[in-house]
């Protein structure tokens, strides 16, 4: 085992342990903001794993898109919401035994399925490292718009659906909407906004004695 392989294994296990720890903390932390930050940690650690797999472009995309954009927005939302966690906590305790049972069952099944005897190095050859001139982005680009054109187009339609759904759910009805019409706004004249009213001078009315007493 060369020093490179040992280093690789250290990085792999460190990142893997971080993902599992962060994943548990996302669910377990009391404060939702802290939970969101742990999710960021989980994303960063998965990006490290992807770099180990030589998927540099995807790793960077994960950091830019998820950590940089999605989670930042998510943090804003979480900070603005006033979430009361107490009622959730009581239910959490009530369903905990059942949840643990299901979790243990699924965990055993999954460990059984992805065990070394099915996916180990005896079954699959150890993947070779790519050469230094290998470009991840170029490989991705050459199949994305050719072989995977159909799913690529479908994903774009999915984004269109998200836009339509978000706008139609969040946009207030036309009565409540406050629109900016700059063209009309700059042409406004004094007469449109201000009305001069001529009033007759009136006698000053003193508050009555009774009212003064009350105060």
């Amino acid at each position, binding site marked *: 085992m060369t020093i490179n392989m040992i280093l690789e294994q250290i990085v792999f296990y460190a990142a893997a342990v971080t993902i599992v720890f962060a994943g548990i903390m996302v669910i377990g932390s009391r404060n939702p903001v802290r939970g969101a930050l742990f999710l960021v940690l989980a994303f960063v650690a998965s990006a490290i794993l992807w770099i180990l797999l030589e998927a540099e472009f995807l790793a960077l995309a994960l950091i830019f898109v998820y950590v940089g954009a999605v989670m930042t927005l998510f943090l804003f939302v979480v900070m603005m919401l006033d979430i009361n966690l107490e009622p959730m906590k009581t239910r959490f305790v009530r369903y905990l035994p059942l949840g643990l049972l299901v979790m243990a069952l699924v965990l055993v099944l999954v460990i059984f399925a992805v065990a070394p005897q099915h996916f180990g190095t005896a079954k699959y050859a150890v993947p070779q490292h790519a050469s230094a001139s290998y470009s991840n982005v170029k490989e991705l680009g050459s199949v994305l718009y050719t072989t995977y054109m159909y799913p690529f187009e479908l994903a774009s*339609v999915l984004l269109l659906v998200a836009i339509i759904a978000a706008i139609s759910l969040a946009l207030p009805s036309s009565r409540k909407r406050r629109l900016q019409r700059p063209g009309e706004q700059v042409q406004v004249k004094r007469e449109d906004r201000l009305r001069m009213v001529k009033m007759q001078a009136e006698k000053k009315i003193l508050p009555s004695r009774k009212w003064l007493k009350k105060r």
Partner: protein
Amino acid sequence: MVFFPNPIPVPQLSLVLPEIVLLALTCVVLLTDLFIPARSKIISYLLVQASLIAVAVILILQFHWPTTYTFSDMFVFDKIGSLMKIFMVGVVFFVFLYSRGYLRQTRLPQGEMYVLGMLSLLGMMVLVSANNFIPLYLGLELLSLPMTAMVAMNRGSGIAAEAAIKLFVMSALASAILLYGLSLLYGTTKSLDINQVAQAVATMPNSQYPVVILSLVFVVIGFAFKIGAVPFHMWVPDIYAGSPNSVVLFVSAAPKIAGLGMAIRLLVQALPSMNIEWQALLIVIAILSIALGNLVAIAQRSFKRMLAYSSIAHMGYMLLGLLAANPTGYGAALFYILVYSIMALGSFAVIVLMSNSGIEIENISDLQGLNSRDPWLAFLLMMLLFSMAGIPPLAGFFAKIGVLEALIGVHLVWLAAYALIFAIVGSYYYIRVVKVMYFEEPKITDPIQYSMEARLAMSVNGLAVLVLGIFPGVLFTLCQRAF
């Protein structure tokens, strides 16, 4: 410099023409709807219906074309897909026709509903003609995301929001489970292409077998979630009860056809050599769905909830055809689901049309004395309900016969007998509604107001059940020949 190191042939766009036309016209509708004033919304409605007719015409003209793969084998054009697409487009056409008056009266945003409905239809069409796990998954998401938005569209209502959240979380969970199963399959077969997966699984060494079984279990769970079969049915009644009636009409019919399409691609075409295993899983799901759906439906007071549980039971009957695991069974399941989509469409349409008068119709008691208020509507609903119960001259009877025949053909006579007993149990609650309509005095006596074209569509819909019952031959042969 070579830009395309591995050039691919230009995809045969003529095969995907219905999808392309639908997407393009959806975008046209989306843009025109923004610029036309609220009082002339009928323009966007007519545009939507015209584009659906155009898509249906293309589909029918293409129907006799041979099975072809395109888009690097990601898209398959075959008879199963074409038949399902024609029915889905037709069903959505009727859904929009029925819900126009309802949407206008409840002041739900019409244009957005139509556009989301069309995009969901596009998702269904992509799903039923996917030959690769990626488009299959994308089609599934494209099917369910617009539906979630449609459920949530009634923003003032608390239960609609609850229903939308439930649908969203449940479909996300189902997608996650399905994806996990598919990723395990990808890990063992090293392919996402359905035909290649089928080959790889058939020639697989025994040591890999447990992994495929586990992925199969995940795939079946994901599928059962999506069609709402027991024990993954909890969301169905809540969604039906919480959504606006027009959305229930949409959710109840066309997506079920797409669900069967997904099962055919995933189980029948991708894992044909595992048929003994998925047959066992589907038997359990079918037994539970038929029993729970029929028994709980008896206890319901709400008409929408009753139909929701009845849909769970019907999904069980449809699975009976699928689990026969031979072409006769698949054809019977396809026939069942197509007939069911017509019946569900008609019976939900009645409550949508009745709600037009301003009040939301929900309970069975709201149907009291429908016969004296609108005899023709009551007659059509009676036929649809009798067809759901499986009473002889109607289409539902032949659908059930086909499924049971396929079961007996593979020597599962006990299962056929079980299904028959619960069909009799189920007919109780359908006939109870008929009793309420015909033999009870109405509380409100004013006649039901709805448009002429809705009346015409309702008649076509109700009589289709009768015509398909008397002459089931053509459609039944088409379904059988598709496999």
